[in-house]
Each structure stands twice: as C-alpha cells, then as structure tokens.
C-alpha cells in the first residue's frame, strides 16, 4: 500500500535531517521500538512491537538509510519478519525549508510503499493502511517533539537515557503520591460497591 503525506517540523532542515539519521533519536521516535542497534554506516538492527486493536506482534529486522543527500533527501527502508508475517517498506523523505514568520521550519514530504505479507496480510488488510498511517504520524510527531526539546533550555543528556530515566523516576514518585490520595478519597465508594455484591 502507498503511504504519502507531509509533516512540518519546527527546526531547520539541517537540524531535522540530523535528527532523522541519529541512532538515539530513531530509538526514541520509531513507534514500538524495543531495540535498535547500529550495524553499519547506515544500517540498524531493530525489534519493533506493533499493535492496533487486539492485534499485537513483533517484527525483527533491519532499517537501512540510503540516498542520503543532506539536508534534503533521505530514503528509509524497513525489512522485518515475525509471527504476523513480514513487512517491507521503503519511503523517500524530501526535506525543504519552510520559512514562516522567521521561525525555522522544515516541511518533510514523504512517499513510500509498505508491503505486508503472511498472516496479517491475509486477514488484516482493512486495518493495515490505517495502522501504518497512524505509525507514520506517530513517528513524525515524535521527531517534532525531539526538535522542540532540542530548542528548550534543558541540559543536553550526556549519556543516552540518563536524563530520561531521572525524569521517569521523578514522575513515578509524584504518581505514587497522587495515587495514595486517590485511594483514600475513593474508599467509601469501594465499601459501597462491595456491599452490593451479586451479579
């Protein structure tokens, strides 16, 4: 199936292009990435978890970058296999500067083909197009978030993941505090529900 569209990123083309080929960025932005490891100059081994509705599967394979013409052109190819079958996709990204009211903007036009095969292809066709579009949308939204984060005054993480882990820990503390409060508040309802019993 064909996937095409465009996305606008709040960063200059050079910066955007750099994000698109950055291993750490890809690891954070490709939806469902469980593992992404550089294998070569422009090749990564990936494990991707994919899901929509009740369908859930894992693809293991490769992402390859090619036709790199920084900062305007990039081809991403994906090739994976799993219990759902196989997936092969190739997408051409063309970046161009989109100056608007002085801000740095890049418009990414993408067009590509995704082919799925195997079990998912034989029964899941009607949802695959929508799911693929949703994933592409998620990817660019994540790239956009990366671009924004890079502009805001937060210390650049020295080592991969440490700042993220720190933020996560803080968040979990806060959540725990909030939940305890919520539990206390809810207790009277809980007793009422328990006393109703029966089916």
């Amino acid at each position: 199936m064909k996937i095409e569209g465009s996305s606008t990123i709040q960063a200059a083309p050079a910066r955007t292009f750099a994000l698109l080929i950055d291993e750490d960025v890809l690891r954070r932005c490709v939806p469902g990435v469980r593992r992404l490891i550089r294998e070569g100059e422009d090749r990564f081994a990936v494990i991707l978890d994919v899901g929509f509705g009740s369908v859930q599967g894992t693809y293991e394979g490769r992402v390859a970058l090619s036709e790199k013409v920084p900062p305007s052109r990039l081809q991403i190819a994906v090739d994976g296999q799993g219990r759902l079958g196989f997936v092969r996709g190739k997408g051409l990204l063309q970046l161009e500067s989109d100056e608007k009211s002085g801000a740095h903007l890049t418009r990414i036009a993408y067009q590509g083909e995704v082919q799925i095969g195997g079990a998912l292809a034989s029964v899941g066709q009607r949802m695959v197009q929508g799911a693929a579009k949703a994933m592409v949308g998620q990817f660019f939204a994540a790239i956009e978030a990366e671009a924004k984060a890079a502009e805001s005054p937060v210390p650049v993480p020295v080592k991969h993941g440490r700042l993220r882990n720190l933020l996560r820990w803080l968040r979990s503390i806060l959540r725990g505090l909030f939940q305890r409060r919520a539990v206390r508040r809810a207790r009277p309802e809980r007793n009422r529900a328990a006393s109703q019993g029966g089916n």
Partner: protein
Amino acid sequence: MSEREPYVGRRIKRTEDPRLIQGLGRYVDDLRFADLHHVSILRSPHAHAKVTSLDASKARSASGVLAVVTVDDLDRANVGDVPCGAVLSGMKKPTHRPLARRKVRFAGEPLAAVVAPSLAAARDAIDLIAVEYDPLSAVIDPEAALKPGAPLVHEELETNRAFDWSVSSGDIEAAFKSAARVASQRIVHQRLIPCSIEPRGVVAQYFPGDRQLTLYTSTQIPHLVRTMLAGVIGLPENHVRVVAPEVGGGFGSKLNFYAEEILLAFLAMQLAPRPLKWIETRPENFAATIHGRGQVGTIEAAVNRDGRILGVRYRSIQDLGAYPQLLGPAIPTLTGLMAAGCYKMDSILVEVTGVYTNQMSTDAYRGAGRPEATYQIERLMDIIADEMHIDPADLRRRNMPHPEEFPFKTATGLTYDSGNYRKALDRALEIAGIEKLREEQRTLRDQGRLIGIGISSYAEICALGPSAAVPAGGWESATVRVEPTGKVTILTGASPHGQGEETTFAQLAADFFGISLEDILVKHGDTAEVQYGIGTFGSRNMAVGGTALLRAMERVRDKAKPLAAHLLGAASPDAVTFSGGTFSAGDQSISFAEVANAAHRAASIPDGFEPGLSATASFEPKNFTFPFGTHVCVVEVDRETGDVTFLRYVAVDDCGKAINPLLVDGQIHGGIAQSIGQALYEEAIYDEAGQLVTGELMDYAIPKAHQCPHFETERTETPTDVNPLGVKGVGEAGTIGATPAIVNAVIDALEPFGVTHIDMPLKPEKIWRLMQKEGR
C-alpha cells in the same frame, strides 16, 4: 407382494441426513486413533522468493516435537512429485515437489512439516523454524505473465506460457467477413474459492511389518488417489488403502491429489506405526486448496442480418497458478469444447493459452470450465440482442437446434445426446410471465426504478465420460452383494460427498429387487472394501455410477433366476418372472430373500450354480450427457447505492430422468446459490505482491441463505440414450445456468444508463460507479 409406488421418481428425504444433522457423521477429524500425532505445516508468506536458509534446529529440539521435515528428507526417501494428470500436448510442465526446494512460488506453498503429539506443540514449533527469504518480484496478472520481461515463475521453463490449445472447425474467417454484424466482449472470469464446509484433512498410518499404508483423506477420488500415491511414495498399489470417510463437500476442490496427502504418507512411513493427522485451517483452505475459474478472454460472434450466428471466436488466457495440479490445464479445454453453448453455428475457433503465475493453482470447481463457456456466450447473446434490437428470447430461439436435430453435432466436434432447448426456454418464460414482467418493467422504469430481466439458456457437458477423453478413465463400477438374509449391500466406485447416492442408489435397488429401502446399504469411499472405481466429479454419479449399479443388479437377477427356477421346479429359467421382489413360475412363487438364503445355504442348487449371490459390473459410457435449461432472473438495482435485490428467480432444467426430484431440486438450489456468489459477491484477490488478501471468510463473501431469492424451479424431462437410466446428471447445471441470468438481469436493469457489460462480481460500488459515469 402388494403393489408399491416405485421409489424411483419419488421425493424422498435422504437416509444420510439424520446422522449428519445429529452430528454423528464421521469426518476425517472425528476418527479416533491411539497414539495420534499431529502435523503442522510451515508455509511461505512470500509469493515468490528464494529460500536462502532454513534452520529447523530450534523446532526439532523443542519439547514434544517428534520430527521436522523439509524437501531434503523427501529427496532422500525418493518421494516423487505432485503429479499433473492433464499434461496437454506441448505443455511446459515444471517439477512440483510436495515441499518447496530453495524457491517458493506462491504464498502458502508448503516448506516444512512438524510432527508432535499435540497440535499445539506442532503449531508452536512452526514458529521456531527460522527461514531467510530473498524476495523476488511476483507475477500475478495472467496477461502480464505473457509480456516480455515478466518475472518467470519457473526459470527452467524460460517462459510463463504453459500451453496453447485450440479447437476449430469451419471457415471462421469467412464467417466474420460475411457477417452483417460482429459482436465482441472481453470477459473476466474471476478467481473463486470453492470453500467446502469441511476443509481438507488427512490421517495416515503405516505398518512396516506387512508394509500396509492407510490414508484417510477428505477426497472425491479415493481409488485414483491410491494409484497415484502408491507411485509417488514407492509402495505397491495393493499395499495402499485410501479411505474417504464422510466428506463435507468438495465442489471439485477435492477432485485432486495434493502435496499434503503425499507428505502425510511419507511421514507415516518415517514415524511408523504412529497415526498422524493434519487438518486444514480455513486460511490454509483458502490459500492452499485449489481455486476455481481464473480465465480472461474475448469472445466474438459473427452474426447475420436475422440474428443467426455464423461463427464464434474465443481467445483466452487461463491462469494456472504456480503449478499445474491434477486437472488444471484441462479445465479451459472444457470451456473451449462448450464455447458454442446451446446454439448451432457453422464455424468456431477457440484458442486458450495457459500461463503460470505466483498464485495458488486453479483447477476444477463446480462446472469446471463450463460456467465460463455458458457465461460468455449468454452475455454475448444479450449484447447481440441489444445491438440488433432483437428480443433476447427470440434471438436464442433462432439459434437453437430443433429436437429432431439430435443427436446434434456441434461446431467443436461434440455430439449433444438429446435436447429440447426451446421447450425449456418457453416454459421458463411462461412461469416467469415474461409479457407481464416486461410491462411492469416499463411502468416501473417510468417511475425511475431500475428493474432488469435476465435470461440464460444453457447446455452443459457432464456425466464424464468416455474413457478415452477422461484422464484416468471415465467408467464407473458397482458391486451388488445379496446377503444370506436378503439384505443388499451396494459397493459403488463413486465417492459421494453430499450428493446423496446412499439414498438414490438404494431407491434404484429397492425398486429393482422389490425390497424395502431399509434393507439396502450403499457403501463407498474405502478402497479396501470397494472395487476399483473412478470417483465423483463432473455430475457423473447417477448417469455412470447408477448405470453400473443397474448392470450389476441385472447380473444378480440373471444369476438368481436359474436357482429360483430350480427351487420352483420350473422347466427353465426363462419360465421364471421376477417382479415386485418375487420370482414366479406358473402359480408358484418364492421371495427374493428366500432365494438369497438358498444361494448361500447351497443345499439345493442346480448344476453349474456357484453358491453366493453377488455381481460386479462396470459401465463405460459411449458419450457424455448434455443437460440443459433456461433460467430467468428479475432484479432491482438501487439507483442510489448500486445494491442488487432479487425479485424473482425461475429455473427450468432438464437432467433427463430424475431418480429423486427432491435431490435434483437441492442440486439446482445449491448450484444457483454458488452462481449468486460468483455473480455478486465472490472474488479471490491477490495483491501485486501475491498476498491473498481475501484470506478468510471475513473478506470472502460466500452467499448466505437470506441473500438467495425464492427459487421457482421446474423440470422438463428429455431422456438420453447414453445410458439405460435416461439420466443426464445435474450436480453442476445450476452453477452453469444461473450466473449469466443474474448478470444479464442486472445489466438489463441498467439499460437506461447504456451499460452493456460489467465484470463479475457485480458489487454495488462497481454498479454505482457505472451509473455515475453514464450519468443519468
């Protein structure tokens, strides 16, 4: 004995049904075995790819797995190829291994098999087999397959072109030169999935001590499978037993010999004496059981001023799929032989090219080539009628042979046995009330409603057939065994799988011997029990199998007569008459049962009489038979959405003598239902990469009961002299006659839009788009 209304000709409910309805039928999956192991098959997800590596080590060492096999194991054991029984002259035939070797050629092609004590363990182990594929471009469209530069399905053949076949007679060039009008239409017969309610399944067991292999398989041709399997697996034929237990429908998809049957036999021999079972899942049934139709071509007719057809020219391409299966190449030749339909013409030219594509094989599916023939000539008749402003029924009448012209030699060289085509046409129109219908149509059209009336007149070729013309022989066998107690056991070489011969053969025997239906048992399907026979396909059970039965019954009677004469003290067997279950001579009589008993007791037998009372016979038909009929369909098309609603459906069919009219009706109903599927709903769709996207009943719409109209059916009875029963066969007639009636009706409904043709399936959106295009 009291006079009894004959069973033959009576509408009797089937004796098969009570057990089936109560869930007491024993299909392959119901059979019980000790120490049963299960087989799961790894299938290619790619339509076309090199297999660069296959690592089954994890699967082999998984807990519970008994074995994992690939083609290397088959090669080592000298297991043969999946055969094709219809290799046409000059045909390029590829090697077809039961498991793919280094290259896969259709999505679903088997690559490996896992054996484990539980189905879950076998299925889990499939996921542990690591295969690396190097995908290749797939060729899907059969016309594209012939273009230079198309990916080659079989490199060693250097082409995708499998065969060129043609039939012709008369001077077709002259016909077209002299024609007042040439009508032409390109027609696509889409791929269909037979979708029998019971998918395929096999249980195999081998005892090495006495080298006995038993294969239980859901098949239409147990004896033929036995012969082929013995050859492929390397066992003497008389050491192989094939059993077709209760079979839940086939429609031609089980008229075949599959890789999985070979595979299970091989595994059983390797893992003897464990019984091994494989049952198809529905997705496997869709992907790896043969598909029907798949022909695309252009039909043209040269017509004179009065609407008489001078000649027909048909050029087509048959999509064979990746491999030719048992009869695949033969199917479009039946289209060619029946290309003239039920019409007279002086010349004809049919040219069919078979091509390989990266899809599942096509082969026989209810009608097997004849639905295509009838569909296109009937569409063309409507096109001619429209272009030349001749009434469609009238046009057909003008071109039909008269009853006196039968046996009628067709332009393609067939001899139609008997027929009264006009009678069926006129009767169908009478039941439909065609004048009133046309009037109502005019009135409703003025109101803006889209009503259409479609006619289809067909003649079809069945009761296969003369052995010279049928790949493994076209005769059929029967043994009639009278037991000492007078009960009768019939062993038929036919292999019914829903047709009802347990009832209809019993009707024949009950009348012949004057005994009760309950005293007769009809057995079939087990090669250890039943003498060699050919099987069930091509609407042949009654015409060929029933005649073999008649012969065997006559032999039993002729054997019993001398004994009866002896017991009655008659002068000679010629003095004995047999009627109503009683042998009489003068005023003496003796019952059938008494004679049976005496034959076995043998205490008092005449000279030369061999004790026992049974006989075997076979019948070799000297021709096919040619049922015919006319269907009339009335539909309404929703102007806003393109939805089609049936208003009426009339079918007048002639299958010669009807042994059980209830079952004949049933065959017609089922045939029309499958035609409705083909006309309006069904299509097996592969995407450009060769993925079968209609991989489950979620996306492949077989018709449901509420989508079928009330069928107004009637029969005419024009007997045939091809067999003494006067029976023609009716199993496929409905599927052949109905599709064009439905499509002709829809196109008639769209007349205000100037629509002249639509390819099946006539889905609402297709119809809607045409209405938008012509825009009125």
